[in-house]
C-alpha cells in the first residue's frame, strides 16, 4: 500500500478485526491474581497482564485476592482499544490494509504503545521490510534463574512475530 499524500489520516477509522481480536485473546496469558512485578516482595504490585495496581509490593491481602474474569476481560478490551488508538495516531501517512493493522495492534498490545514506537515509525515512513525485521527481532523475554534472571528467546513469540509481520513482507 502506498503512502497517503492527502494530509488526512488514512487509517483513522480502522479497528482490529474480530478474528484477530479472538486470536489475540487466546494468545495472551491472563493472570487472575495480584503479583509483584520484580518477584515476591520486590517491585510494584501488578495484576492481570501486567496492569499496575499501585507502587510498591502487594500486601498479603492482595496476594490472596483473586481477580475476576470480568475485570481481566475489561482490561483486555481497554488495552486493545489503547493499542488501536496508538496505531491510528502513529501511522497516519502509510495506508494500512486490515491484516497490517491487525498485526500492528497485536504487536503494540504485546510490547506496549511506546515499546512499539520504532516499528510504528518505520511503517509510517513506508519502510515496511525494515519494520517487519524489527518486529521479528522482539522475541526475548526474561525468565527467573537461580542467580536472578536472564533473557531467553520465547518460541511462542517467534511464531507470533512471524504472523504479525507477514503482512509487511508481501
Amino acid at each position: 500500500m502506498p503512502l497517503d499524500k492527502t494530509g488526512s489520516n488514512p487509517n483513522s477509522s480502522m479497528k482490529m478485526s474480530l478474528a484477530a481480536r479472538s486470536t489475540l485473546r487466546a494468545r495472551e496469558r491472563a493472570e487472575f491474581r495480584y503479583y509483584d512485578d520484580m518477584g515476591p516482595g520486590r517491585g510494584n504490585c501488578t495484576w492481570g497482564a501486567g496492569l499496575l495496581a499501585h507502587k510498591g509490593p502487594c500486601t498479603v491481602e492482595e496476594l490472596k485476592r483473586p481477580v475476576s474474569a470480568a475485570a481481566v476481560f475489561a482490561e483486555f478490551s481497554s488495552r486493545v482499544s489503547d493499542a488501536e488508538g496508538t496505531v491510528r495516531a502513529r501511522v497516519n501517512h502509510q495506508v494500512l490494509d486490515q491484516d497490517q493493522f491487525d498485526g500492528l495492534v497485536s504487536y503494540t498490545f504485546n510490547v506496549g504503545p511506546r515499546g512499539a514506537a520504532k516499528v510504528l515509525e518505520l511503517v509510517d515512513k513506508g519502510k515496511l521490510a525494515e519494520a517487519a525485521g524489527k518486529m521479528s527481532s522482539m522475541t526475548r523475554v526474561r525468565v527467573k534463574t537461580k542467580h536472578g534472571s536472564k533473557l531467553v528467546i520465547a518460541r511462542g513469540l517467534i511464531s507470533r512475530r512471524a504472523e504479525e509481520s507477514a503482512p509487511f513482507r508481501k
Partner: protein
Amino acid sequence: MKPNLKYDSKLRRNSGIKLGWLALLGLTASLLSASRASAAEENDSIFGHWRAVAVLDVADVAGKSDAAARQLIGLCLDIEPEVLRFAGEECTTPAYQRTTREPARYLREQWHARSGKLNLPNPVTVIDAGCTDLFITDQSRMIFNWDGFFYEARRVEPVQCRALPPIRR
C-alpha cells in the same frame, strides 16, 4: 451634501470587527510562535551528544540478548532537531514533545517495563522522540530505551564521540 450617517456607522462597525479579528489572529500567531520558540529553547538543552554508559534494565520483551545490549555501551546517542541517531539507526523528524509522568505507571503501561532499577525522579520529564522516549534526570544524565533495553546516557563533547570506533553490526 448630507452624510449617510447610518451607512457610515455600519462601515465603521464592520471595520472595527475586522480590526478586532486581525488583532486576535495576530495575537494567536504570536502566542503560537512564542510557544514554539519556547519549546525549541527548552529542547536546546537535550540537543548534542550523549554516550550510553550502562544498561539499567530491560522491558518484558526485548529485541536482543543481554550481551548484544551491553555491546552498545560506549556508543553515542546524537540528538539533533531533525534526527536522533544511535547504533547505526535513525529516527527522523522527532517531535521532542515534553510531558511530566509518574514513572512506575508510565513505564508499566507504555513500555511494559518496571521502574525499580531506573532511579527516575517522580514526576519525571519524558520527551517523545518518535521512535523512543528520553527520560530526563538532570542536565547531564538521561535514560532512553533501545530495542527494549533502558540505557543510562551521559552528555559528552562532540570530540569524545568522534573518537569512538565504527559501529559493529
